[in-house]
């Protein structure tokens, strides 16, 4: 009797502990973000005096100010351009490589694959000086193209890894039929393997796009003028642009976060798949 009682007490404690842990991390993930969003709707006076209360009047004007002061439209345009072109360029070169590395058999194949994917071992921040020199030498300093080429290249290892892993699983028979029908190598790629790899391409593409959208260091190092400033670098200048108008600045930050949250909500299953594709053996 006593045994079963203590056992059920333990079970209750275990359930309590379990939900405490889960809730703690949920709170940690969302309360700071929620506080930021809430603050972005307040007056600066409210923000300093009642930091945890709801705004008396929701200050949508902060968002209007945010867009006017920060030059957000230009920053958004640059970031969208850089992120999408980097992603397309990266996927194109990576898919071409992943195709021959996964669908054909030839000497040195494994060495090439290993070399390309081993790029993930290199801390990209260690390459600040050479990237700066290369982009200058190519005449791409302070241009969006400089960022596009850099981002597309940095993400080659991850994309080749994901696309190779995906293309490897496609059945061989499809291509055999195509070869009998006289398809060229490029037709096998563009008409058969590429359309069938859509899922892998979306997964890799989501990763690359988010990386480009969020990248900060090289956006800072490789550009100097407002014309080629991306959104992340723009956020850095908010502090001086908004001066002491904190709540309008938070509104600007919230606006910059929104697109990634939307992308995440739309593609979160692809992201989870991409993250776990290499994690589980067999």
């Amino acid at each position, binding site marked *: 009797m006593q045994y079963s009682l203590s056992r059920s007490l333990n079970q209750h404690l275990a359930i309590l502990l*379990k939900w405490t842990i*889960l809730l703690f*991390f*949920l709170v*940690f*993930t969302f309360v*700071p*973000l929620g506080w930021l969003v809430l*603050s972005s709707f307040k007056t600066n006076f409210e923000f300093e005096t009642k930091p945890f209360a709801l705004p008396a009047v929701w200050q949508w004007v902060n968002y209007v100010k945010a867009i006017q002061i920060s030059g957000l439209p230009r920053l958004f345009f640059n970031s969208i351009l850089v992120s999408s072109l980097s992603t397309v360029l990266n996927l*194109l*070169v990576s898919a071409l*490589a992943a*195709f*021959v590395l996964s669908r*054909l*058999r030839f000497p040195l194949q494994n060495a090439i694959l290993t*070399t390309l994917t081993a*790029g*993930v*071992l*290199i*801390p990209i*921040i*260690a390459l*600040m*000086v*050479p990237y700066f*020199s*290369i982009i200058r030498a190519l005449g791409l300093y302070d241009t969006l193209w400089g960022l596009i*080429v*850099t981002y597309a*290249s940095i*993400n*080659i290892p*991850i994309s080749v*890894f994901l696309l190779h892993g995906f293309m490897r699983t496609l059945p061989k028979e499809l291509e*055999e039929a195509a*070869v009998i029908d006289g398809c060229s*190598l490029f037709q096998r790629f563009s008409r058969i393997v590429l359309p069938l790899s859509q899922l892998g391409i979306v997964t890799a593409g989501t*990763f690359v796009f*988010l990386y480009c*959208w*969020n990248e*900060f*260091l090289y956006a800072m190092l490789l550009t100097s003028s407002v014309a080629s400033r991306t959104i992340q670098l723009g*956020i*850095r200048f*908010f502090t001086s642009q908004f001066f002491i108008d*904190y709540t309008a*600045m*938070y509104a600007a*930050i919230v606006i*910059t*976060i929104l697109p*990634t*949250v939307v992308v995440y909500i739309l593609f979160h299953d692809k992201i*989870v798949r991409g993250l776990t594709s*290499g*994690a*589980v053996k067999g």
Partner: protein
Amino acid sequence: MGRTALHRVPWKGIILFLLPVSVLYFLFFIYPLGFVFIIGLTQWNGVTAPQFVGLRNYLDLLQDPTFLLSVRNNFIWALSLGLGQIPLAALVAMILARKPRGWKFLRTMYFLPNVISQVAISMMWIAIYNAEYGALNKLLELVGYGHWARNWLGEIETALPAIILQQVLYIGYFMIIILAGAMAIPSSFYEASEIDGASVVQQELYITLPMLRGILVTSMTLAMAYGLRHFEATFLMTAGGPANSTSVMGIQLFNNMSFLRYGRANAIGSALIVLGVLVIVVLRNTLGRSEGISEIQQ
């Protein structure tokens, strides 16, 4: 005829298909690697010709207390992530693997901060840790601990722990990787042990943890590698201050580069690369071979 066509090596096509990737990979991985190691042996301001100075940059770095402090901080980062974040991520993953109510929602939510830029996250924490209007101090005042309020990022004792803590508690990335591993364990293992009267805790200790060994080792290795290459949050929140107390190797590299000390900057870069690879190789060999996942970014 068809089969031989499929198995003949179409060299021309292969070279054409691999050409774009090779050009970019050479330009942004192979050449920069050589560049970092070679320029690291010179004195160079980026304008006049580099002068070969042998290992002098490295010897200078070993005498530089700020650099040594930065290396120490990098190791604190690596240990905090490897021994702090990974166990927390594993704990949550093991809970979610038993599919409690709303586990999919929780999995999605825990990962969300990982898709938000480090710049935005850092700006948020700057606001939270701020001495005058920061949410943390206001919260402490609210619950009657106002005397604990301080300038969290501005004081030497609290700056490093403050940056590390917010980063360690974002467990989403590794939690998802470990969770995938935990969910791949055949449920028959648990059913069999249940018949033998094993408790939940016993099942986790004697089934889940040993089965996850490979993934945990990989995650720990990755987390420590991230710790060594840590840069962004610190750069954005304190830029290495106050009094270099939060500095890491990446910050020192950046500062040397800003002062046009390219030789020294690249010596730090090569130290970063070598240490990173070393940590991965050593951990793999001591903790046992890890399987699968090989994706590290940044």
